[in-house]
């Protein structure tokens, strides 16, 4: 996984609450069996008309935000379906950080596994960032995971919190399967006390 330490980039505001993963990546794009190439389908129904032409009024197509790598949105971002394709599409499109006042649990977990940082700020802080992003040309934020800060160069400054272990994994780009496998002794001990129920062995074909 790509480590995340500090990122400075331009900001695009998506002023909506409860953005669900069906909007982030509609179902017709979930049939690919690879992890890559989802960026072009990000927010597909919001970005493109039914005939495939770009909707110029959608924030991501606003030329002011064309270089954005930080997305700021309303509360409960990423709710709904567990599809990790939502995170893959945001990351593949070029986003490194999502800022919102609340995230859905599964989305936040999926983001962690892909080096996409989710930063939870208060509603007034999110509103202030949206205001600045809408009124300042090439508005930039610096997000520092070591210091747990979000700052611009015009006096905005906020701190955020994150689970220590999640932060440690992100900072170091750790493969958490590898970390879990370091507990092999404990896992094997648990399994010896809790064997698979005998009736399950009948589930395999040919038995």
């Amino acid at each position, binding site marked *: 996984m790509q480590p995340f330490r500090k990122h400075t980039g331009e900001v695009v505001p998506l*002023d*909506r*609450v*409860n953005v*669900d993963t*069906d*909007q982030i990546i*509609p*179902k017709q794009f*979930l*049939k*690919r*069996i*690879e*992890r890559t190439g989802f960026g072009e389908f990000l927010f597909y*129904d919001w970005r493109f008309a*039914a005939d495939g032409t770009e909707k110029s009024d959608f924030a991501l197509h606003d030329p002011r935000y064309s270089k954005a790598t930080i997305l700021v949105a*309303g*509360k*409960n971002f990423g*709710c*709904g*379906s*567990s*599809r*990790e394709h939502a*995170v893959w599409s945001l990351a593949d499109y070029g986003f490194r950080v999502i800022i919102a006042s*609340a*995230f*859905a*649990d*599964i989305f936040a*977990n*999926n983001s962690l*596994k*892909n080096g996409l940082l989710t930063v939870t700020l208060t509603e007034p802080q999110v509103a202030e960032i949206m205001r600045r992003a809408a009124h300042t040309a090439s508005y930039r934020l610096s997000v520092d995971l070591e210091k747990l800060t979000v700052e611009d160069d015009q006096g905005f400054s906020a701190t955020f919190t994150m*689970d220590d*272990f*999640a932060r*440690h994994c992100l900072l170091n780009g750790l493969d*958490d*399967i590898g*970390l*879990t*496998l370091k*507990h092999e002794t*404990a*896992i094997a001990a*648990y*399994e010896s006390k*809790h064997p*698979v*129920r*005998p*009736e*399950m*062995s009948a*589930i*395999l*074909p040919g038995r």
Partner: protein
Amino acid sequence: MAPRTLFEKIWDAHLVSSPEGQSPLIYIDLHLVHEVTSPQAFDGLRTNGRRVRQPLRTVATVDHNVPTTPRGLPIADPIAAKQIEALQKNCREFGVPLFDIDSPEQGIVHVIGPELGITQPGMTIVCGDSHTSTHGAFGSLAFGIGTSEVEHVLATQCLPQKKPKTMQIDVRGRLLNGVTAKDLALGIIGRIGTGGAAGYVIEYTGEAVRKLSMEARMTLCNMSIEAGARAGMIAPDETTLAYVQARRFAPKGKDWDNAVSAWQTLATDPGGKYDRVIEIDAASLAPFVTWGTNPGMVVPVTERVPELASFAQESDRRAAEQALSYMDLQPGMPMEQITVDRVFIGSCTNSRIEDLRSAARVAKGHHVNPKVRAMVVPGSQAIKHAAEQEGLHRIFLDAGFEWRESGCSMCLGMNPDILQPGERCASTSNRNFEGRQGRGGRTHLVSPMMAAAAAIAGHFTDIRNWRFN
């Protein structure tokens, strides 16, 4: 020992390790797998030279992509076919049991787990699907995960998990006639919002919950994720045992007696503490219909589309305005005047035999409105077969409903069952998000009875006034 909740007992029993400075590692008893969220996980195993640690704790089926037209026809969508083939190949390569498309056990993953007796009380269950919360109806800790976590569980049978908070939703009194578990779920989400339970595992308690059948409990727990909950659960009782006993993969003989003894200790101890408690008066609930683009945008069928001024928060008011624009509805319009083009009875929320019985009871002796196209999609091949034994398919077909093969179907429209732009649908599924059932499609979530009644009336109608034949 201090009194513990149902959740805490299952959590404690599955702790493999609590390493200093890391998330606790919990053991996963059952990992359900389907074609959409698994291919990249199997690829990850291959890349890293890892195997599936516990193939007998892993069960796969195909459900999201499968057409609901007669089995045996080729899958017209080549990309869907490729994804299904990928699962077949992965299951062969890694030794994972698969209930394939032509299997009599095939069905929606959250339907077949319980009906085969694979889902049991006290288990930890995960699946790369948010509606895994369904299995909590059995008093298990069941939650949805992403594809990276699917790979993690395949490789290690464990997950590092931050311990969630607990929420009790205590449903006092009894549900009125015509008010179902679906209405209870929608009523709860309407009250606490789609993010209202984020970070929590819900335990549903109270007289109204105890009185629910297993099918109804599954509907209620299924919708927990729509309130943002990590999981939803209900302590096992006689209703649970009666459902699980004698199912194919349920414990047998002495194993059954031992299992029952263990399951009977799972219920929350007197004095067990929750982080948050919500009380619901069951008798205050009515049949609900959603009006907007998330499940929290919901009112009783007897009410009207809300006025924008009724939203206190500016962000919610704007969200409502956007939703009404998408749904092409006006504030103040009576819900019963909203006409529908399509009706979908199915999904992991409402496709079980009891759901089909209740819809058939409404449909019996009536006919689908000529302007409406209505389809019934059983949750599994076993349910389809059982319904046909009971003659339910006859009732539906005589009334003008389509009777189809099992799968997720129009809940998310990954197969050819989708809404056309602008079409309005009464749906027994779980999400009314924009475009969920097809781009430009407009979804209203309801119970199976309310959906069947809408198909016949051509508009939403209060099931409590229905003329049953």
